């Protein structure tokens, strides 16, 4: 297991280096951040002073090497725009994003698993067909448009929810979050629904397909031949086997949700990492972009590790294979 984790970490270092080169080249090609940053009245001398200050007069390869050597010492650079440590900016925004993603994921699971089980067990009923039909729409609607519609109908027309931003914060057990306050929940619901809808339809389809496969297997038939109550067959035998597949996908999706909450955060003016990265891309704030991406890579790796551990908790076959293999 330890060897496995080490291998994973080495892989992630490689990913970070490749990503660094891509971002540096990308930002270099797009333009000079100083163009955006200095005021229009600044003269040429001012401009060049700024370029030298940020180290942008160096050749690209040198900039990358300097960045990496700083990175190894734990310095992810300072934001060009805010002249604050880039990592600090990203980490400050992280709780907001995690909070949003957490609520969205719980929503998607709480609705997706029961609906998926139902449609899988009774595929030919009218409600099942309705759920499946609706879920196709859920997959097809562009996320930003769906967000705008939610704001338009529920926030602007009916005034049920605020149209954007994060609610009041409170600290309980040392965790600061807007989920401790009623106002926080009023704010988080719409963006979370927007983020959850696609996940929910994905989970419905996945669970349904899985359940339909599992009910045909011999061990389900044997469970019925034992005279077990249908309830027990569904909630123990079928559900547990569905979870194995579900956990893989949830793991992948969770990373995706964090990374791609960008659209939802922008539409709902949610002050999370996604909003920060979009703002930083506009002003070519390279250190912040890089810091954000490093954090995302780390999150992905952590989530994948957790998924692997959960896997072996649920599936005994994997448990033995791993303790035998490593």
């Amino acid at each position, binding site marked *: 297991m330890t060897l496995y984790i080490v291998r994973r970490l080495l892989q992630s270092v490689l990913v970070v280096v490749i990503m660094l080169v891509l971002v540096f080249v990308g930002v270099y090609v797009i333009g000079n951040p100083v163009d955006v940053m200095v005021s229009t009245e600044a003269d040429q001398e001012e401009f060049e002073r700024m370029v030298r200050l940020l180290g942008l007069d160096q050749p690209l390869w040198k900039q990358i090497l300097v960045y990496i050597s700083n990175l190894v010492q734990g310095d992810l650079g300072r934001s060009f725009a805010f002249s604050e440590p880039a990592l600090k900016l990203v980490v400050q925004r992280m709780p907001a994003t995690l909070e949003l993603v957490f609520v969205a994921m719980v929503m998607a699971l709480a609705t997706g698993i029961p609906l998926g089980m139902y449609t899988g067990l009774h595929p030919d009923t009218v409600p099942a067909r309705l759920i499946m039909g609706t879920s196709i729409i859920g997959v097809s609607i562009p996320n930003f448009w769906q967000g705008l519609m939610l704001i338009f109908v529920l926030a602007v027309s009916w005034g049920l929810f605020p149209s954007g931003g994060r609610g009041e914060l409170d600290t309980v057990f040392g965790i600061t979050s807007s989920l401790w306050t009623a106002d926080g929940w009023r704010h988080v619901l719409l963006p979370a629904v927007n983020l959850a809808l696609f996940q929910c339809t994905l989970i419905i389809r996945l669970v349904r397909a899985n359940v339909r496969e599992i009910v*045909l*297997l*011999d*061990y389900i*038939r*044997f*469970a*019925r*031949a*034992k*005279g*077990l*109550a249908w309830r*027990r067959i569904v909630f*123990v*035998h079928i559900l*547990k*086997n569905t979870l*194995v597949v579900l956990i893989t996908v949830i793991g992948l999706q969770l990373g995706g949700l964090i990374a791609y909450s960008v659209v939802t955060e922008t539409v709902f003016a949610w002050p999370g990492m996604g909003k920060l990265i979009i703002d930083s891309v506009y002003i070519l704030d390279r250190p912040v972009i890089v810091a954000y991406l490093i954090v995302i890579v780390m999150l992905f790796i952590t989530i994948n590790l957790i998924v692997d551990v959960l896997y072996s908790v*649920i*599936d*005994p*076959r994997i448990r*033995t294979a791993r303790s035998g293999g490593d």
Partner: protein
Amino acid sequence: MFHTNGAGGELLRIEGLHTEFATRAGTVRAVDGIDLRLRRGEILGLVGESGSGKSVTGFSIIGLLDEPGRVTAGRIVFDGQDLLAAGEPALARLRGSRIAMIFQDPMMTLNPLLRIDTQMIEAIRAHSKVGRDAAWRRARDALGLVGIPSPEERLRAYPHQFSGGMRQRVVIAIAMLHAPDLIIADEPTTALDVTIQAQILHEMQRLRREREMALIWITHDLSVVAGLADRVAVMYAGRIVEQGSVDEVLDTPEHPYTEGLIGSIPSHDAAGGALAQIPGMMPSLIDVGPGCRFRERCPRATHRCRDDDPAPRSTGGERLVSCHHPGSGR
């Protein structure tokens, strides 16, 4: 043999059973009017090739047909109770307690994610109101009964930690938990290698003797039937073409299909020579025309076989044969 003929009263009676699968291509008449009787404590070998309807017969009895399978006609009377008229709750009470089933592939029969004790205790508690501890002790004893060493430790294991033969023993132990009157075994030794197969057969013989349970052994392997069963029923294309005591049927087969099956078993005498085969293939069960279903492959077929579907006729004792030209060719 122990209590072979006349061991007990009638346990199961099947009359005119029809089981159909409505598919897009048409209705498949998987079981097309069969009659069977089974006494208490009797072992019946149900023999036939793939698709002959032998497994479907088993699933029809226990009420576990896969969609879109339906029993469309007939009666299945188990110990005086009409199973086809019984509702699902009544069937669920019978399943596992009075009628148990064992499947072909022991690798697939146990849930891979649940420990053996979980799977045994849930089966016990489905029919007996006992506490977990009492159920656990019963599970342990049941494993011991089927010859699993150190059952207390093995109860904590997962299915993948057992070999195929041991897994099938666990499955048999589960089937035996409530001392059922009838076990339907659907090719339970087909997936096992020969030595394990012999052990399992021996085990089943012993358990039958001790517990007085009846057994329907579904198989395509006549040699297994020869060593195990009291009576045999040979199925072909959804029908039972011949039934009778094992000795009679295997020694003097009356139906040409039975004869062909026996002839195609490799033997010492013919070593090195070509194996006998039954030419042709089983007809599709979607559009079964008039006449005998075996006629296209039958060496004895005549005009009569083309137009007239032979009904089961007694040829003495319990022997029933569906053929216009019965008789032993041997």
